[in-house]
């Protein structure tokens, strides 16, 4: 639940299908005169992995970043339409974005741990949310690191700088940091594109495991990755969703010819 300081108006109408957790309706996102996402209506199922694929500049990252309102930090960004999350419209002006971002976490393309110790990378946000007792913090740090399959590698050097980790470990630390917030949804923006194949495989394995407890939306340029890990795939092109469906279906039997051209490597 988003516990906003200002109460949220939860819409009573528009009942959601039980399995859906996020739905965008006619979402338009523009930066000044440039429309980056044009009229996108998508539905994301609970505890599933949805991959967003498409060539660079097609609007998939913008779309992803709108779900936790990270585009807010770009002053020229404008939204139209709705993003419905558990009956709340996330584009509502009264949304407490900090509570929203706690519940809908995000992991970025380039691993971006804080310039702090491994321990404090996770404890930092916990402390902000008033968890101050050392025992509780220790517990939560270990728990998140275990969930991100990083505990065994770092348990003996929790107080070393996060920068002493390899790129893949840093990215798992970033995932652990997000998990510590106990989110419902995790947004991943090309989380392994900056990593080597082995680190990439570990991240993929991790993402599949996380599906049990979280809803995952992942932007990826790597079509093998999309087909390996995702349940559903949406193909973006020039700000539109050209095709959205079950991953197997979309890769084996694409309906639209643009989709077929893209997944067979004819452009992008």
């Amino acid at each position, binding site marked *: 639940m988003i516990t906003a300081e200002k109460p949220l108006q939860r819409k009573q109408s528009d009942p959601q299908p039980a399995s859906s957790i996020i739905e965008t309706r006619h979402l338009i996102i523009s930066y000044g005169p440039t429309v980056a996402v044009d009229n996108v209506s998508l539905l994301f199922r609970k505890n599933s992995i949805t991959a967003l694929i498409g060539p660079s500049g097609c609007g998939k990252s913008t779309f992803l970043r709108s779900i936790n309102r990270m585009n807010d*930090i770009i002053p020229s960004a404008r939204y139209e339409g709705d993003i419905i999350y558990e009956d709340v419209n996330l584009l509502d002006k009264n949304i407490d974005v*900090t509570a*929203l*971002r706690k519940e809908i976490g995000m992991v970025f393309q380039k691993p*971006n741990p804080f*310039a702090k110790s491994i321990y404090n990378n996770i404890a*930092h946000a916990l402390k*902000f949310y008033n968890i101050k007792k050392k025992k509780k913090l220790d517990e939560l740090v270990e728990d998140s690191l275990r969930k991100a399959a990083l505990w065994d590698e770092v348990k003996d050097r929790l*107080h070393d*700088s996060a920068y002493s980790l390899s790129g893949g470990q840093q990215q798992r630390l970033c995932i652990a940091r997000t998990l510590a917030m106990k989110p419902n949804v995790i947004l991943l923006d090309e989380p392994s594109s900056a990593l080597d194949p082995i680190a990439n495989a570990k991240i993929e394995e991790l993402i599949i495991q996380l599906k049990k407890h979280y809803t995952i939306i992942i932007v990826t340029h790597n079509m093998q990755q999309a087909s390996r890990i995702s349940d559903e795939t949406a193909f973006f092109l020039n700000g539109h969703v050209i095709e959205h469906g079950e991953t197997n279906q979309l890769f084996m039997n694409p309906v639209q010819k643009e989709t077929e051209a893209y997944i067979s490597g004819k452009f992008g």
Partner: protein
Amino acid sequence: MNSKLADKMATGVFVLIALIFISLLTALFSYILMRGLPVISWDFLTEASSVVREGGGIRDQLFNSFYILFVTLVITVPLGVAGGIYLAEYAKPGKITNFIRTCIEMLASLPSIVVGMFGLLLFVNLTGWGYSIIGGALALTMFNIPVMVRVTEDAIRSVPADQKQASLALGMTKWHTIKTVILPSAFPGILTGTILASGRIFGEAAALLFTVGLSTPELDYTNWNPFAETSPLNLFRPAETLAVHIWAVNTNGIMPDVTEIAAGASAVLVLSILLFNLLARFVGKIIEQKLTANKK
């Protein structure tokens, strides 16, 4: 001329320029130290200065210099850092922000003697404080704040944007992000700015001539009550600093050992700045390690 020769010549020219700088610096340092070091003794550092007699020390001037440095930094650093945070994180780009920035740059380029005259008007006469440490510190603050603002803004802007995004994406507020993620990363840059400003403050004479004056009252170093008349900590007393003392004995000193005092005081001034820099960097390194867990 072929490009290889041009390349060699460029290297040669730059090495030459570097050598000129180094020899100038060495010459200056050795001149100051060679003349000054023989004068420096325990007595020289711990005796009060004398207006007419031989053998006066620089105890009060040395203390005043450090005390004014301290007071100025206490005012300058928080204000300057706050200004830098505002310009880097809150100010919306536009005419007003540009105007503010122009004002700050103008302030930085004011000749210190002009700041001193303004300080005389404002902090000495208008407030009725007379020559005072606080007046001098405020005058010094005026032309050191721009440097602090600028340095802080640059240091904050050079923190990678992904650090800020990471913090915001975890649901932390903007202020908490600035306080706990951005400022610690910007700390080394801010520290360098503070050290540069400290050097200027410690060596400044012109702005202090008219604001803290050329004299120091009788000080009682056992009285640490900042409100007492004779306390060295009293903010509302006149205080001649080391740099001002050097200027004063050189221009109108009547004691027989004017040259020695000036030389000794100059050496102490230079060495103090050097020691202060080293100390600040050392402490800064420890703080930085605490903040970032980096064991470099």
